[in-house]
Protein backbone atom coordinates (compact mmCIF):
# COMPACT_ATOMS: atom_id res chain seq x y z
CA UNK A 1 0.00 0.00 0.00
CA UNK A 2 1.23 3.53 -0.72
CA UNK A 3 2.97 4.91 2.34
CA UNK A 4 1.57 8.40 1.96
CA UNK A 5 -1.79 8.38 0.35
CA UNK A 6 -2.54 12.08 0.07
CA UNK A 7 -6.28 12.53 -0.21
CA UNK A 8 -6.51 16.03 1.20
CA UNK A 9 -9.35 17.88 -0.42
CA UNK A 10 -10.25 14.85 -2.48
CA UNK A 11 -13.84 14.24 -3.40
CA UNK A 12 -15.41 11.01 -2.15
CA UNK A 13 -15.41 9.28 -5.54
CA UNK A 14 -11.70 9.82 -5.93
CA UNK A 15 -11.04 8.79 -2.32
CA UNK A 16 -12.91 5.52 -2.87
CA UNK A 17 -10.83 4.78 -5.96
CA UNK A 18 -7.55 5.47 -4.18
CA UNK A 19 -8.48 3.50 -1.10
CA UNK A 20 -9.82 0.68 -3.25
CA UNK A 21 -6.51 0.45 -5.08
CA UNK A 22 -4.60 0.41 -1.82
CA UNK A 23 -6.76 -1.76 0.43
CA UNK A 24 -9.38 -3.76 -1.44
CA UNK A 25 -7.39 -6.97 -1.56
CA UNK A 26 -6.33 -6.91 2.09
CA UNK A 27 -9.83 -6.09 3.30
CA UNK A 28 -11.41 -8.93 1.31
CA UNK A 29 -8.80 -11.29 2.75
CA UNK A 30 -9.68 -10.09 6.23
CA UNK A 31 -13.36 -10.71 5.61
CA UNK A 32 -12.72 -14.15 4.07
CA UNK A 33 -10.99 -15.17 7.30
CA UNK A 34 -14.11 -14.13 9.18
CA UNK A 35 -16.90 -15.40 6.91
CA UNK A 36 -14.97 -18.01 4.89
CA UNK A 37 -17.02 -17.31 1.77
CA UNK A 38 -15.24 -15.17 -0.78
CA UNK A 39 -18.34 -13.89 -2.56
CA UNK A 40 -19.89 -12.91 0.79
CA UNK A 41 -16.60 -11.28 1.81
CA UNK A 42 -16.53 -9.24 -1.38
CA UNK A 43 -20.11 -8.13 -0.69
CA UNK A 44 -19.14 -7.13 2.83
CA UNK A 45 -16.16 -5.06 1.71
CA UNK A 46 -18.06 -3.53 -1.18
CA UNK A 47 -20.72 -2.36 1.29
CA UNK A 48 -18.02 -1.00 3.58
CA UNK A 49 -16.60 1.08 0.72
CA UNK A 50 -20.04 2.39 -0.18
CA UNK A 51 -20.62 3.37 3.47
CA UNK A 52 -17.17 4.97 3.64
CA UNK A 53 -18.04 7.02 0.54
CA UNK A 54 -21.05 8.42 2.41
CA UNK A 55 -18.89 9.39 5.37
CA UNK A 56 -15.95 10.77 3.47
CA UNK A 57 -16.73 14.37 4.42
CA UNK A 58 -16.14 13.41 8.05
CA UNK A 59 -13.21 11.05 7.54
CA UNK A 60 -11.16 12.98 4.99
CA UNK A 61 -8.00 11.30 6.11
CA UNK A 62 -6.73 7.99 4.68
CA UNK A 63 -5.76 6.63 8.12
CA UNK A 64 -9.19 7.32 9.53
CA UNK A 65 -10.78 5.95 6.39
CA UNK A 66 -8.77 2.72 6.65
CA UNK A 67 -9.63 2.40 10.36
CA UNK A 68 -13.27 2.94 9.45
CA UNK A 69 -13.12 0.38 6.65
CA UNK A 70 -11.56 -2.24 8.92
CA UNK A 71 -14.12 -1.72 11.65
CA UNK A 72 -16.92 -1.76 9.09
CA UNK A 73 -15.61 -4.98 7.56
CA UNK A 74 -15.35 -6.69 10.95
CA UNK A 75 -18.85 -5.62 11.95
CA UNK A 76 -20.39 -6.40 8.61
CA UNK A 77 -18.69 -9.77 8.48
CA UNK A 78 -20.37 -10.71 11.72
CA UNK A 79 -23.65 -9.43 10.39
CA UNK A 80 -23.11 -11.44 7.21
CA UNK A 81 -22.52 -14.53 9.29
CA UNK A 82 -25.65 -14.03 11.29
CA UNK A 83 -27.93 -13.12 8.44
CA UNK A 84 -26.72 -15.44 5.79
CA UNK A 85 -25.52 -18.46 7.68
CA UNK A 86 -22.48 -18.41 5.44
CA UNK A 87 -20.41 -20.64 7.65
CA UNK A 88 -23.19 -23.12 8.12
CA UNK A 89 -23.66 -23.36 4.37
CA UNK A 90 -19.98 -23.82 3.92
CA UNK A 91 -19.75 -26.47 6.57
CA UNK A 92 -22.60 -28.38 4.98
CA UNK A 93 -20.84 -28.26 1.63
CA UNK A 94 -17.58 -29.60 2.94
CA UNK A 95 -18.22 -32.07 5.67
CA UNK A 96 -15.15 -33.73 7.13
CA UNK A 97 -13.72 -36.18 4.65
CA UNK A 98 -15.08 -34.36 1.62
CA UNK A 99 -12.23 -31.87 1.42
CA UNK A 100 -9.38 -32.08 -1.00
CA UNK A 101 -6.70 -32.22 1.63
CA UNK A 102 -3.85 -34.27 0.24
CA UNK A 103 -0.99 -33.91 2.63
CA UNK A 104 0.76 -31.57 4.96
CA UNK A 105 3.38 -30.72 2.39
CA UNK A 106 1.00 -28.84 0.18
CA UNK A 107 0.72 -25.19 1.19
CA UNK A 108 -2.60 -24.65 -0.62
CA UNK A 109 -4.16 -27.42 1.43
CA UNK A 110 -2.73 -26.02 4.62
CA UNK A 111 -4.21 -22.63 3.85
CA UNK A 112 -7.57 -24.18 3.20
CA UNK A 113 -7.26 -26.23 6.38
CA UNK A 114 -6.57 -23.08 8.40
CA UNK A 115 -9.50 -21.24 6.85
CA UNK A 116 -11.70 -24.24 7.50
CA UNK A 117 -10.47 -24.54 11.09
CA UNK A 118 -11.49 -20.92 11.65
CA UNK A 119 -15.06 -21.89 10.86
CA UNK A 120 -14.92 -24.54 13.57
CA UNK A 121 -14.10 -22.25 16.50
CA UNK A 122 -16.68 -19.95 18.11
CA UNK A 123 -17.51 -16.64 16.41
CA UNK A 124 -15.86 -14.72 19.25
CA UNK A 125 -12.71 -16.84 19.12
CA UNK A 126 -12.49 -16.43 15.36
CA UNK A 127 -12.92 -12.65 15.59
CA UNK A 128 -10.37 -12.31 18.35
CA UNK A 129 -7.83 -14.53 16.57
CA UNK A 130 -8.19 -12.67 13.29
CA UNK A 131 -8.10 -9.21 14.85
CA UNK A 132 -5.22 -10.06 17.17
CA UNK A 133 -2.99 -12.08 14.86
CA UNK A 134 -3.99 -11.04 11.36
CA UNK A 135 -4.71 -7.33 11.89
CA UNK A 136 -2.32 -7.04 14.87
CA UNK A 137 -4.83 -5.07 16.89
CA UNK A 138 -4.10 -4.56 20.59
CA UNK A 139 -6.20 -6.30 23.22
CA UNK A 140 -7.72 -2.93 24.11
CA UNK A 141 -8.65 -2.16 20.49
CA UNK A 142 -10.31 -5.55 20.17
CA UNK A 143 -12.12 -5.19 23.49
CA UNK A 144 -13.60 -1.89 22.38
CA UNK A 145 -14.44 -3.05 18.88
CA UNK A 146 -16.21 -6.18 20.11
CA UNK A 147 -17.71 -4.69 23.26
CA UNK A 148 -16.04 -7.23 25.54
CA UNK A 149 -13.48 -6.90 28.32
CA UNK A 150 -9.74 -7.20 27.81
CA UNK A 151 -9.81 -10.27 29.99
CA UNK A 152 -12.32 -11.84 27.62
CA UNK A 153 -10.11 -10.94 24.65
CA UNK A 154 -7.19 -12.67 26.31
CA UNK A 155 -9.18 -15.78 27.08
CA UNK A 156 -10.74 -16.01 23.60
CA UNK A 157 -7.28 -15.63 22.07
CA UNK A 158 -5.88 -18.34 24.32
CA UNK A 159 -8.73 -20.81 23.85
CA UNK A 160 -9.03 -20.00 20.16
CA UNK A 161 -5.33 -20.71 19.62
CA UNK A 162 -5.60 -23.97 21.52
CA UNK A 163 -8.65 -24.96 19.46
CA UNK A 164 -6.83 -24.17 16.21
CA UNK A 165 -3.92 -26.28 17.31
CA UNK A 166 -6.21 -29.24 18.00
CA UNK A 167 -8.15 -28.78 14.77
CA UNK A 168 -5.06 -28.44 12.61
CA UNK A 169 -3.14 -31.37 14.06
CA UNK A 170 -0.35 -32.21 11.63
CA UNK A 171 -0.78 -28.96 9.73
CA UNK A 172 0.05 -27.08 12.91
CA UNK A 173 3.08 -29.21 13.68
CA UNK A 174 4.48 -29.22 10.20
CA UNK A 175 4.05 -25.61 9.22
CA UNK A 176 7.47 -24.04 9.16
Amino acid at each position, binding site marked *: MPAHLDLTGTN*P*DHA*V*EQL*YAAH*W*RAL*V*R*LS*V*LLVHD*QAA*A*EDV*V*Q*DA*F*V*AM*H*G*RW*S*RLRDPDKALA*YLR*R*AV*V*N*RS*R*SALRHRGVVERYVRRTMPGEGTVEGPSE*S*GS*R*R*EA*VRHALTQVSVRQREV*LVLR*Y*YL*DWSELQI*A*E*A*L*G*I*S*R*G*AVKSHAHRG*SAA*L*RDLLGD*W*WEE*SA
Partner: protein
Amino acid sequence: MTEGKVRQLLNDAAEDIDPGDRLASIRSATARRGGRTAWGWWVTGGAGMVAASVVTALVVSGGVNPQGSLTGPATTSTTRSSSIEGVNDTLAAVYYVGDTPDGPRLYREFRRVRADLVFHAALDAAVGRDIEGAPLAPLDPDYRVPWPAGTTIAAQVLPAVDSKSGGLDEVIEISLGGDVDLRERGIVSESEASLAIEQLIRTAQGAVSARVPVRFLLEGKVTDQVLGVSTAPTLTAGSSLDTLAHVSLSDPAEGRTVDNDNPLTVRGVGNSFEGNIVTRIQGWEDDAVFAQKPATAGWMEDRLFPFTVTFDLSNVPPGDYVVISSTDDPSGRGREHTDTRRISIMD
Protein backbone atom coordinates in the same frame (compact mmCIF):
# COMPACT_ATOMS: atom_id res chain seq x y z
CA MET B 1 5.60 -19.40 20.27
CA THR B 2 1.92 -20.21 19.87
CA GLU B 3 1.13 -16.59 19.04
CA GLY B 4 3.79 -16.51 16.37
CA LYS B 5 2.45 -19.71 14.88
CA VAL B 6 -1.14 -18.46 14.74
CA ARG B 7 0.05 -15.19 13.21
CA GLN B 8 2.01 -17.05 10.57
CA LEU B 9 -0.80 -19.50 9.78
CA LEU B 10 -3.40 -16.75 9.40
CA ASN B 11 -1.23 -14.57 7.23
CA ASP B 12 -0.37 -17.55 5.10
CA ALA B 13 -4.02 -18.61 4.87
CA ALA B 14 -5.00 -15.19 3.57
CA GLU B 15 -2.23 -15.00 1.02
CA ASP B 16 -3.72 -16.97 -1.83
CA ILE B 17 -7.13 -15.33 -1.64
CA ASP B 18 -7.48 -13.43 -4.89
CA PRO B 19 -10.44 -11.04 -4.73
CA GLY B 20 -12.47 -10.23 -7.80
CA ASP B 21 -12.81 -6.66 -9.02
CA ARG B 22 -15.75 -4.75 -7.58
CA LEU B 23 -14.75 -1.16 -8.29
CA ALA B 24 -17.42 -0.77 -10.95
CA SER B 25 -20.09 -2.09 -8.57
CA ILE B 26 -18.93 0.26 -5.82
CA ARG B 27 -18.97 3.22 -8.21
CA SER B 28 -22.47 2.45 -9.36
CA ALA B 29 -23.66 1.90 -5.77
CA THR B 30 -22.24 5.20 -4.54
CA ALA B 31 -23.66 7.04 -7.52
CA ARG B 32 -27.08 5.49 -6.97
CA ARG B 33 -27.40 5.49 -3.22
CA GLY B 34 -25.43 8.54 -2.25
CA GLY B 35 -23.79 6.90 0.74
CA ARG B 36 -26.57 4.78 2.11
CA THR B 37 -25.91 1.06 2.03
CA ALA B 38 -28.23 -1.84 1.71
CA TRP B 39 -27.40 -2.93 5.24
CA GLY B 40 -28.03 0.35 6.93
CA TRP B 41 -25.52 2.37 8.80
CA TRP B 42 -22.38 1.22 10.39
CA VAL B 43 -22.58 0.18 14.01
CA THR B 44 -19.56 0.24 16.28
CA GLY B 45 -18.73 -3.00 17.96
CA GLY B 46 -20.37 -6.36 17.68
CA ALA B 47 -22.25 -5.95 20.93
CA GLY B 48 -23.58 -2.69 19.59
CA MET B 49 -25.50 -4.49 16.93
CA VAL B 50 -27.06 -6.93 19.33
CA ALA B 51 -27.95 -4.21 21.78
CA ALA B 52 -29.27 -1.89 19.13
CA SER B 53 -31.68 -4.47 17.83
CA VAL B 54 -32.88 -5.36 21.31
CA VAL B 55 -33.29 -1.71 22.16
CA THR B 56 -35.57 -1.26 19.18
CA ALA B 57 -37.62 -4.19 20.34
CA LEU B 58 -37.95 -2.67 23.80
CA VAL B 59 -39.01 0.67 22.48
CA VAL B 60 -41.58 -0.94 20.24
CA SER B 61 -42.97 -3.03 23.08
CA GLY B 62 -43.46 0.13 25.10
CA GLY B 63 -41.13 -0.01 28.07
CA VAL B 64 -41.53 2.29 31.04
CA ASN B 65 -38.99 5.04 31.27
CA PRO B 66 -37.15 5.09 34.58
CA GLN B 67 -37.91 8.72 35.07
CA GLY B 68 -41.42 8.83 33.75
CA SER B 69 -40.55 10.39 30.45
CA LEU B 70 -37.72 11.80 28.50
CA THR B 71 -39.50 15.07 28.06
CA GLY B 72 -37.36 18.13 28.04
CA PRO B 73 -35.54 18.90 24.86
CA ALA B 74 -37.87 20.18 22.19
CA THR B 75 -39.19 17.21 20.28
CA THR B 76 -38.53 19.06 17.05
CA SER B 77 -34.83 18.99 17.84
CA THR B 78 -34.51 15.45 19.14
CA THR B 79 -33.64 14.04 15.75
CA ARG B 80 -31.95 15.76 12.91
CA SER B 81 -30.58 14.49 9.69
CA SER B 82 -27.04 15.65 9.14
CA SER B 83 -27.36 16.23 5.45
CA ILE B 84 -23.74 15.46 4.67
CA GLU B 85 -23.47 11.94 6.00
CA GLY B 86 -27.17 11.19 6.27
CA VAL B 87 -26.57 9.65 9.71
CA ASN B 88 -29.31 10.46 12.17
CA ASP B 89 -28.33 12.05 15.43
CA THR B 90 -30.40 11.79 18.53
CA LEU B 91 -30.18 12.92 22.12
CA ALA B 92 -29.01 10.52 24.79
CA ALA B 93 -29.74 11.17 28.46
CA VAL B 94 -26.55 10.84 30.49
CA TYR B 95 -26.49 11.14 34.27
CA TYR B 96 -23.61 12.95 35.96
CA VAL B 97 -22.78 13.85 39.56
CA GLY B 98 -23.25 17.42 40.75
CA ASP B 99 -23.60 19.12 44.11
CA THR B 100 -26.77 20.10 45.99
CA PRO B 101 -27.37 21.31 49.56
CA ASP B 102 -28.17 17.64 50.32
CA GLY B 103 -24.79 16.46 49.06
CA PRO B 104 -23.85 15.02 45.67
CA ARG B 105 -26.75 13.98 43.47
CA LEU B 106 -27.28 12.94 39.87
CA TYR B 107 -28.17 15.44 37.19
CA ARG B 108 -29.37 14.48 33.75
CA GLU B 109 -27.73 15.99 30.69
CA PHE B 110 -28.69 15.41 27.08
CA ARG B 111 -25.85 14.67 24.66
CA ARG B 112 -26.12 14.56 20.92
CA VAL B 113 -25.04 11.15 19.69
CA ARG B 114 -25.39 8.94 16.63
CA ALA B 115 -28.88 7.46 16.64
CA ASP B 116 -27.59 3.94 16.00
CA LEU B 117 -25.24 4.12 18.99
CA VAL B 118 -27.37 5.70 21.73
CA PHE B 119 -26.92 2.92 24.26
CA HIS B 120 -23.15 2.68 23.95
CA ALA B 121 -22.55 6.40 23.51
CA ALA B 122 -24.59 7.21 26.63
CA LEU B 123 -22.70 4.69 28.79
CA ASP B 124 -19.32 5.70 27.41
CA ALA B 125 -20.20 9.32 28.19
CA ALA B 126 -21.22 8.32 31.73
CA VAL B 127 -17.66 7.09 32.43
CA GLY B 128 -16.18 10.13 30.68
CA ARG B 129 -15.36 8.77 27.24
CA ASP B 130 -16.64 9.07 23.72
CA ILE B 131 -17.30 6.01 21.55
CA GLU B 132 -13.74 6.14 20.22
CA GLY B 133 -12.40 6.04 23.78
CA ALA B 134 -11.26 9.67 23.92
CA PRO B 135 -11.96 11.67 27.11
CA LEU B 136 -15.39 13.31 27.12
CA ALA B 137 -16.42 15.66 29.93
CA PRO B 138 -19.99 16.68 30.78
CA LEU B 139 -21.09 19.78 28.85
CA ASP B 140 -22.06 21.50 32.09
CA PRO B 141 -18.92 22.40 34.08
CA ASP B 142 -20.92 21.93 37.32
CA TYR B 143 -21.18 18.21 36.63
CA ARG B 144 -18.54 15.53 37.00
CA VAL B 145 -17.91 11.91 36.13
CA PRO B 146 -17.56 9.87 39.33
CA TRP B 147 -15.49 7.11 37.72
CA PRO B 148 -11.67 7.07 37.82
CA ALA B 149 -9.98 8.22 34.61
CA GLY B 150 -9.24 5.24 32.38
CA THR B 151 -12.44 3.39 33.30
CA THR B 152 -13.75 1.44 30.33
CA ILE B 153 -17.28 0.22 29.86
CA ALA B 154 -18.94 -2.29 27.59
CA ALA B 155 -22.60 -3.14 27.77
CA GLN B 156 -25.25 -5.19 26.12
CA VAL B 157 -28.90 -6.09 26.55
CA LEU B 158 -29.36 -9.82 26.92
CA PRO B 159 -32.42 -12.02 27.09
CA ALA B 160 -32.97 -13.45 30.57
CA VAL B 161 -35.51 -15.73 32.19
CA ASP B 162 -37.67 -14.01 34.79
CA SER B 163 -37.18 -16.01 38.00
CA LYS B 164 -40.75 -15.39 39.17
CA SER B 165 -42.87 -15.68 36.05
CA GLY B 166 -40.51 -17.92 34.10
CA GLY B 167 -41.16 -15.67 31.10
CA LEU B 168 -38.52 -14.16 28.90
CA ASP B 169 -37.14 -10.89 30.11
CA GLU B 170 -34.10 -8.74 29.51
CA VAL B 171 -31.06 -7.89 31.54
CA ILE B 172 -28.55 -5.13 30.84
CA GLU B 173 -25.02 -6.36 31.35
CA ILE B 174 -22.47 -3.66 32.12
CA SER B 175 -18.84 -4.70 32.12
CA LEU B 176 -16.37 -2.27 33.64
CA GLY B 177 -12.63 -2.38 33.31
CA GLY B 178 -9.62 -0.21 32.75
CA ASP B 179 -6.53 0.86 34.58
CA VAL B 180 -7.97 0.66 38.10
CA ASP B 181 -9.42 -2.36 39.91
CA LEU B 182 -12.93 -1.09 40.53
CA ARG B 183 -14.05 -3.74 43.02
CA GLU B 184 -13.07 -2.33 46.39
CA ARG B 185 -14.41 0.64 48.33
CA GLY B 186 -12.22 3.70 48.78
CA ILE B 187 -11.52 4.35 45.09
CA VAL B 188 -14.10 7.11 45.19
CA SER B 189 -15.83 8.56 48.26
CA GLU B 190 -18.54 6.41 49.79
CA SER B 191 -21.38 8.80 48.90
CA GLU B 192 -20.20 8.98 45.30
CA ALA B 193 -19.67 5.22 44.99
CA SER B 194 -23.37 4.42 45.25
CA LEU B 195 -24.16 7.40 43.01
CA ALA B 196 -21.69 6.08 40.43
CA ILE B 197 -23.56 2.76 40.34
CA GLU B 198 -26.93 4.54 40.15
CA GLN B 199 -25.53 6.76 37.42
CA LEU B 200 -24.78 3.80 35.14
CA ILE B 201 -28.08 2.07 35.94
CA ARG B 202 -30.12 5.17 35.17
CA THR B 203 -28.12 6.02 32.04
CA ALA B 204 -28.47 2.45 30.73
CA GLN B 205 -32.16 2.19 31.60
CA GLY B 206 -32.77 5.61 30.06
CA ALA B 207 -31.06 4.52 26.84
CA VAL B 208 -33.34 1.49 26.50
CA SER B 209 -36.39 3.35 27.85
CA ALA B 210 -37.17 0.58 30.31
CA ARG B 211 -36.43 -0.42 33.88
CA VAL B 212 -34.38 -3.39 32.83
CA PRO B 213 -32.36 -4.93 35.69
CA VAL B 214 -28.63 -4.34 35.45
CA ARG B 215 -25.93 -6.93 36.07
CA PHE B 216 -22.43 -5.63 36.78
CA LEU B 217 -19.25 -7.31 35.59
CA LEU B 218 -15.63 -6.43 36.19
CA GLU B 219 -13.28 -7.31 33.35
CA GLY B 220 -16.00 -9.52 31.92
CA LYS B 221 -16.68 -11.50 35.11
CA VAL B 222 -19.83 -11.17 37.18
CA THR B 223 -19.01 -9.37 40.42
CA ASP B 224 -20.71 -9.11 43.80
CA GLN B 225 -19.54 -5.52 44.29
CA VAL B 226 -18.23 -2.49 42.45
CA LEU B 227 -16.50 0.35 44.33
CA GLY B 228 -17.50 -1.53 47.49
CA VAL B 229 -21.20 -1.27 46.60
CA SER B 230 -23.04 -4.59 46.54
CA THR B 231 -24.20 -5.31 42.98
CA ALA B 232 -25.31 -8.94 43.03
CA PRO B 233 -27.29 -10.40 41.44
CA THR B 234 -28.83 -7.46 39.54
CA LEU B 235 -29.81 -3.90 40.41
CA THR B 236 -32.39 -1.41 39.28
CA ALA B 237 -32.68 2.33 39.85
CA GLY B 238 -33.24 3.36 43.47
CA SER B 239 -35.35 6.17 44.94
CA SER B 240 -35.37 9.17 42.63
CA LEU B 241 -35.70 11.72 45.42
CA ASP B 242 -32.75 10.21 47.32
CA THR B 243 -30.56 9.91 44.22
CA LEU B 244 -31.35 12.74 41.84
CA ALA B 245 -30.98 16.48 42.16
CA HIS B 246 -34.55 17.72 42.54
CA VAL B 247 -34.25 19.88 39.45
CA SER B 248 -32.45 19.07 36.22
CA LEU B 249 -32.50 21.20 33.06
CA SER B 250 -32.94 19.57 29.68
CA ASP B 251 -33.13 22.63 27.45
CA PRO B 252 -31.24 24.88 26.70
CA ALA B 253 -27.99 22.93 26.43
CA GLU B 254 -24.89 24.38 28.11
CA GLY B 255 -23.27 27.09 26.02
CA ARG B 256 -26.13 27.51 23.57
CA THR B 257 -26.40 30.74 21.59
CA VAL B 258 -29.92 32.10 21.27
CA ASP B 259 -31.32 34.94 19.19
CA ASN B 260 -33.27 37.48 21.25
CA ASP B 261 -35.81 37.79 18.44
CA ASN B 262 -37.09 34.37 19.45
CA PRO B 263 -38.65 33.32 22.74
CA LEU B 264 -36.48 31.02 24.88
CA THR B 265 -38.16 27.88 26.12
CA VAL B 266 -36.61 26.32 29.21
CA ARG B 267 -37.48 22.70 29.87
CA GLY B 268 -36.53 20.42 32.68
CA VAL B 269 -37.74 18.00 35.31
CA GLY B 270 -38.20 18.71 38.97
CA ASN B 271 -39.87 17.87 42.25
CA SER B 272 -40.44 20.74 44.62
CA PHE B 273 -42.70 21.91 47.46
CA GLU B 274 -46.15 22.34 45.90
CA GLY B 275 -44.52 21.66 42.54
CA ASN B 276 -42.98 25.14 42.35
CA ILE B 277 -39.88 25.58 40.21
CA VAL B 278 -38.66 29.13 39.64
CA THR B 279 -36.49 29.88 36.61
CA ARG B 280 -34.42 33.06 36.29
CA ILE B 281 -32.24 34.57 33.59
CA GLN B 282 -29.28 36.35 35.19
CA GLY B 283 -26.27 38.19 33.84
CA TRP B 284 -23.22 35.91 33.77
CA GLU B 285 -20.91 38.55 35.24
CA ASP B 286 -23.10 40.52 37.64
CA ASP B 287 -25.95 38.15 38.57
CA ALA B 288 -28.47 40.89 37.67
CA VAL B 289 -31.84 39.20 37.18
CA PHE B 290 -33.37 40.02 33.79
CA ALA B 291 -36.39 37.79 34.01
CA GLN B 292 -37.95 35.33 36.45
CA LYS B 293 -40.89 32.96 35.98
CA PRO B 294 -42.49 30.22 38.03
CA ALA B 295 -43.54 26.87 36.64
CA THR B 296 -45.31 23.91 38.12
CA ALA B 297 -43.62 20.54 38.08
CA GLY B 298 -44.98 18.18 40.73
CA TRP B 299 -44.31 16.73 44.16
CA MET B 300 -45.41 14.07 46.66
CA GLU B 301 -44.23 11.18 44.48
CA ASP B 302 -40.81 9.60 44.23
CA ARG B 303 -40.06 10.98 40.80
CA LEU B 304 -39.31 14.18 38.91
CA PHE B 305 -42.01 15.88 36.86
CA PRO B 306 -41.53 17.78 33.59
CA PHE B 307 -41.90 21.55 33.53
CA THR B 308 -41.66 24.16 30.79
CA VAL B 309 -41.35 27.93 30.93
CA THR B 310 -40.94 30.39 28.05
CA PHE B 311 -39.18 33.77 28.15
CA ASP B 312 -39.52 36.71 25.82
CA LEU B 313 -35.94 37.89 25.26
CA SER B 314 -36.69 40.96 23.11
CA ASN B 315 -35.65 43.35 25.90
CA VAL B 316 -32.60 41.40 26.97
CA PRO B 317 -29.37 42.92 25.61
CA PRO B 318 -26.86 40.61 23.88
CA GLY B 319 -24.30 38.98 26.14
CA ASP B 320 -23.62 36.00 28.34
CA TYR B 321 -26.31 34.88 30.75
CA VAL B 322 -27.10 32.04 33.08
CA VAL B 323 -30.44 30.25 33.21
CA ILE B 324 -31.15 29.02 36.75
CA SER B 325 -34.02 26.77 37.73
CA SER B 326 -34.54 26.30 41.43
CA THR B 327 -36.75 24.22 43.71
CA ASP B 328 -38.65 25.92 46.49
CA ASP B 329 -37.59 25.55 50.11
CA PRO B 330 -40.46 26.78 52.31
CA SER B 331 -38.29 26.41 55.44
CA GLY B 332 -36.19 29.34 54.24
CA ARG B 333 -32.99 27.52 55.16
CA GLY B 334 -31.53 27.78 51.70
CA ARG B 335 -31.89 24.10 50.87
CA GLU B 336 -32.96 24.77 47.29
CA HIS B 337 -31.67 22.49 44.56
CA THR B 338 -30.65 24.38 41.44
CA ASP B 339 -29.46 23.59 37.94
CA THR B 340 -27.82 26.17 35.70
CA ARG B 341 -27.01 26.63 32.01
CA ARG B 342 -24.79 29.30 30.57
CA ILE B 343 -26.17 30.78 27.35
CA SER B 344 -25.17 33.56 24.95
CA ILE B 345 -27.88 35.87 23.76
CA MET B 346 -27.37 37.68 20.46
CA ASP B 347 -29.29 40.24 18.46
